[in-house]
């Protein structure tokens, strides 16, 4: 069994002190690829925000092994298109965590961002305005930004929302590749079951206030899913 990177013990998540989901107990192994599944409003984003520290937990315990660096890939629609930022400007923000307030950006950090953009095949459009890029191009820039943070954990919130099928396939192949090559821990929020079957190892499934956690091979079998949804097959 791999070392546990994240342990949740009886965790309650929600807003303004009101829990939307209670008693979450699970652990995420280091270097694992975990998909977070659930219908709209099931609490996927709330769970993600709690793990990232954006939203404080309502109760319970959340423990990390050490102080992992997160590379966060939000949904691109969450970012305001009013800002006249290029793809490079957006990717550059990934290194801000290592730069002291008021310090000028060192040349080597800028070069590193170029490398990250190359790695995600986003260097060709990095000088264009971020707001004018397609859904798939924006996601590539945001993944480059997350990689620029030199993360231990890559957290992706529905990275394929609004992205066409071909680009979705390419994106997930790329995420799987960096997972294998860099031994990154991946937390991926998605609705897409075929993608989860193909790429993820573990699943956290939020369903009607309950949390199911286990390997893909056990949780996503037709029998188990029929049981979860209480339907006959």
């Amino acid at each position, binding site marked *: 069994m791999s070392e546990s990177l994240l342990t949740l013990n009886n965790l309650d998540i929600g807003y303004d002190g009101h829990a939307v989901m209670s008693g979450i107990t699970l652990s995420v192994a280091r270097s694992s690829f975990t998909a977070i599944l659930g219908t709209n409003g099931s609490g996927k984003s709330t769970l993600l*925000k709690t793990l*990232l*520290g*954006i939203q404080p937990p309502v109760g319970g315990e959340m423990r990390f092994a050490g102080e992992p660096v*997160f590379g*966060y890939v*939000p949904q691109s629609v*969450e*970012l*305001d298109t*009013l*800002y*006249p*930022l*290029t793809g490079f*400007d957006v990717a550059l*923000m990934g290194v*801000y*965590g290592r*730069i002291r*307030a*008021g310090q000028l*950006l060192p040349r080597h950090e800028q070069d590193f961002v170029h490398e990250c953009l190359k790695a995600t095949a986003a260097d060709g459009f990095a000088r264009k*305005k971020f707001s004018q890029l397609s859904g798939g191009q924006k996601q590539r820039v945001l993944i480059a*930004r997350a990689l620029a*943070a030199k993360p231990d954990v890559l*957290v992706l919130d529905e990275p394929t929302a609004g992205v066409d099928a071909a680009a979705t396939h390419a994106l997930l192949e790329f995420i799987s590749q960096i997972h294998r090559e860099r031994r990154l821990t991946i937390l991926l929020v998605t609705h897409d079951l075929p993608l989860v079957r193909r790429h993820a190892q573990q699943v956290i499934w939020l369903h009607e206030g309950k949390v199911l956690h286990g390997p893909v091979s056990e949780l996503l079998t037709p029998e188990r899913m029929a049981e979860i949804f209480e339907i006959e097959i």
Partner: protein
Amino acid sequence: METFREILSPDFLLRNSVYTSVLVGFICPLVGVYLVLRRLVFMGVALPQISSTGVAVALSLPMWFGVNLSEHGEHSEHLLAFVGSTVFSLIAILVLALMERRGRGLPEGRLGTAYVVSAALSILLLSKNRFGEAGWLDLLKGEIITISNFDLELTGIALALVLAVLGIFHKELLLVSFDRALAVTLRKKVVFWDAVMYLLIGFTVSIAVLSVGPLIAFGFLLIPVLTVRLFARNMRQFTIVSSIVGGVASFVGFWIAYQWDWPVGPTDVVLLGVIFAVVWTGHGIVRTFKKQQTREAS
């Protein structure tokens, strides 16, 4: 050209007014960029007005308490107005920002009410103030005439401070404005940087209102920024060109006003409006032309 040379002359009687309005013209858009990007345009309208109410309240205090300001030094009136303007701006921006973050109610309604009530209140207070009526009512209308060396120095120092903070911490201010979630995951002190941003906005507004009045302050906070947003390709271009448009427009506005004996404030703001209209029209034509070219090419 004769007027132009006269304005630039070191002996020009109104040189402090020129310098002050140009300083305000350069600095206000740098702060206005964040007001526009954070979609707080209405706050940019209400804040200068609330700040001027602070001036009115501060100048009414001696009258209410029976104190004669002229007995307390040459600059006491200006310092009192500065304190009133700053305190009202900062309280207003912190309260309005807090309500904005809680996301309850109707923000436009709150800002509209704050604007109209504060505008009425400041006129009411100053019209009943036998000490400050003439000069300060002129300021509220945007007449930049009597600016002493002390006023100019105070404005210059304050705006240099704003410029320094904006320049040194632009990374942090941009990050928390554009993507708060990322800022949190990178362990940045989001609340602290938000507070710095709001303090900068409040401080700049209060200085600008005190120097040139709420009308011009509002004009320079927003119109250059909205103009340059139409064509800016990156943040650096956006901020620098906005600042240049503001500074140049304030100088040209002063020149036009002096040449034709118009009030400076309204002239500046109308000039900014004309620049916006020209750029907006030009931008529309260029966009239509480019679309047509793309259609033909495909």
